C-alpha cells in the first residue's frame, strides 16, 4: 500500500555496466594522452636512433662523446642546480614567515606569489633585460649607493641568467613548501623544546623532516622547469651559454638535424623522468 506511493526505487546498475560507463568516460582523455603524448614520445625515441641506414647511435655519441656537447649538457644541469638552490634558500625561510602572516599582510604576500604566475615567462624575461642593462635600474642603484663606480655588465652573463631563472621559477618552490608549512602544528616544536631539544636539534629532527614532502615537490618542480628552460637563456644570455633546450631548438628550427635534436630531447626527457621518479620515491620513503 505505502510502497506504491513512493517513486520506483532506482535500479542499481550492474557492475559491468558501470565499468563500461567508466571506460566510456575516460576514453576521450585516453585518446589525447596516448595519441598526442605517449605515442609521439616513443616516435621521438625512434627518430633519435634510426636514420636512413638503419639503427644508429651516432646522435648519442655526438651528444655525450664530444667535449662541446658534454658542456652543453652540463650547462643545462648547472642552470637547473643553481636555480633550484637559490630558489630553495630564499623560499624555505620565507614560507615560515608566510605561514605566520595574517590578514592583509598575508593577502599581499600571497598576491606577490600569484601575480608573477599570471605574467608570461617572455614578459618577465623581457623585464629582466630592461632591469639588468648597463644603464638599467640595478646598475644605477648600485652606483647611487656607491657600491660600484662604473656600470658593470650584467645582461648576457651567467649571473643575469640565474637571477632571471630564479625569479621566474621561485613561485613553484615556495607554493608547495608553504602548503606544508601552513598545516604544520606549532606544538611539535614546543613539544621538542619541552623534551629538552635545543632549537637547532628541534629544527633538524622535527621541523625539517615534517616539511620534507614540500621541499621534495618544490625542488623537483623547479629543477625540471629550469633544466629545460628555453626562453630564459635565449633572452638573458644568448648564444654563449648553449643548453640542451637551445640545442634542440637549433637542431629543429635552423640546422634541420631532427635525429640529433631528438637525441638531445630524449636526454632532457630522461633527466626530467629521473627527477620525477626520484622525488616520488623520496616522498614515499618512511621516515
Amino acid at each position, binding site marked *: 500500500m505505502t510502497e506504491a506511493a513512493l517513486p520506483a526505487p532506482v535500479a542499481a546498475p550492474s557492475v559491468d555496466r558501470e565499468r563500461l560507463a567508466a571506460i566510456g568516460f575516460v576514453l576521450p*582523455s585516453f585518446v589525447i594522452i596516448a595519441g*598526442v603524448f605517449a605515442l609521439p614520445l616513443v616516435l*621521438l625515441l625512434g627518430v633519435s636512433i634510426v636514420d636512413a641506414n638503419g639503427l644508429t647511435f651516432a646522435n648519442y655519441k655526438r651528444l655525450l662523446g664530444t667535449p662541446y656537447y658534454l658542456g652543453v649538457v652540463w650547462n643545462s644541469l648547472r642552470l637547473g642546480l643553481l636555480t633550484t638552490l637559490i630558489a630553495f634558500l630564499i623560499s624555505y625561510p620565507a614560507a615560515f614567515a608566510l605561514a605566520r602572516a595574517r590578514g592583509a599582510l598575508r593577502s599581499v604576500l600571497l598576491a606577490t606569489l600569484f601575480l608573477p604566475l599570471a605574467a608570461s615567462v617572455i614578459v618577465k624575461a623581457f623585464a629582466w633585460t*630592461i632591469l639588468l642593462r648597463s644603464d638599467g635600474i640595478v646598475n644605477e642603484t648600485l652606483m647611487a649607493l656607491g657600491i660600484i663606480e662604473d656600470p658593470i655588465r650584467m645582461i648576457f652573463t651567467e649571473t643575469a641568467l640565474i637571477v632571471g631563472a630564479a625569479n621566474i621559477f621561485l*613561485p613553484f618552490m615556495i607554493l608547495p613548501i*608553504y*602548503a606544508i608549512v601552513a598545516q604544520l602544528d606549532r606544538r611539535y616544536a614546543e613539544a621538542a623544546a619541552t623534551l629538552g631539544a635545543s*632549537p637547532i636539534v628541534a629544527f633538524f629532527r622535527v621541523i625539517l623532516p615534517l616539511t620534507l614532502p614540500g621541499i621534495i615537490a618544490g625542488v623537483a618542480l623547479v629543477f625540471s622547469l629550469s633544466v629545460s628552460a628555453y626562453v630564459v637563456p635565449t633572452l638573458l644570455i644568448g648564444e654563449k651559454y648553449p643548453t640542451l633546450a637551445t640545442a*634542440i631548438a637549433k637542431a629543429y628550427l635552423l640546422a634541420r638535424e631532427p635525429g640529433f635534436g631528438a637525441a638531445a630531447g630524449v636526454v632532457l*626527457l630522461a633527466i626530467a623522468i629521473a627527477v620525477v621518479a626520484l622525488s616520488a620515491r623520496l616522498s614515499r620513503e618512511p621516515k
Partner: protein
Amino acid sequence: MARAAIIVCWVMAIGLALFLIAPLLVIAAASFSPTPVFDLPLTGASTRWYGRIGRLDGFWPSLLLSLQIALLSTAISLVSGTLAAIAIARGKLPGANIFATALVSPLMMPGLVLGIALLQGFRAVGFTAPWATLLVAHLVITLPYVARTMIAGLARFDFTLIEAARTLGCTYPGSVLRVMVPALAPSFLIAGIFSFLASFDNYPVSIFLADVRTKTLPIRMLQYIEEAPDPTLAALSTLILSGTVILLFVSDRVVGLHRMAGTSD
C-alpha cells in the same frame, strides 16, 4: 637564536615579495616611458605606446589565433578531463591511479621535448595544417591542468548526493545539473583559468608547429623582443597582465586565492 631565525624568515619573505614583483613593476613603468628607450626612473609619462600596439606587425592575427586555440582547447579539455575525473573518482575504473598519473604527467615533461615529439608525430601521419596541429597539441597542454583540479575537486564531492536527488524525484541529468555542477563550479573555474593561461602563454610547444603565417602571440612577442624592443611591447605586456589580474581578482572573489594555493601545488 629562535628570534634571529624568525627575523631571517621575515627578511626573506619581504625580499622575496619585492624580488617577485620587481619585473612586473618595471614592465608597467616602462610602458609609460616618454622616450623610445627604457629610461627608468621615468622623467615623464606618455600613453602613446598603448596606441601603437595594434600597429605591431602581425599583432591582430596572432592575438586572434592565441585566443581561439586557448578557448577551444580549454573547452575540449574541460569536458574530456571532467568526464575522466568522474570515472576516476567513482572508483569503478580498473587502473584508475595509473591513469590519473598519466593524465597529469605532461606537466612534468619539458615543453620543448613535447613540441618536437608532436612535430615528428604529426609529420609521420601527414597532419600538417598549422591551426589544427596547434589546437590538438594544446589539448595535451591544457588537459593535465583540468584533470588535476577536477580529480582533487571530485575527491571532496559526495556522489550519494546525486542518488539523494534522484530519490527525491529528480531525473539523472537533472540531478547532475542541479547538484553536481554547482558543487563543482569553483573547480571548473580554477581548472578553466589555469588551462586557458597555460595555452595562451605557451611558447615551447607552439614554436615547432607554427609557420610564417600562423604564429601565436607568444611567438610574435619573442620575435618583437629579439628584433626591436621598444615600450610598445611593455604596453602590450602590461595590458595582458592587467587582464590576467582582473581575471584572478574576480575568481578570488568567487572561490578564494587561498584555495588556489591548495590546488596548484
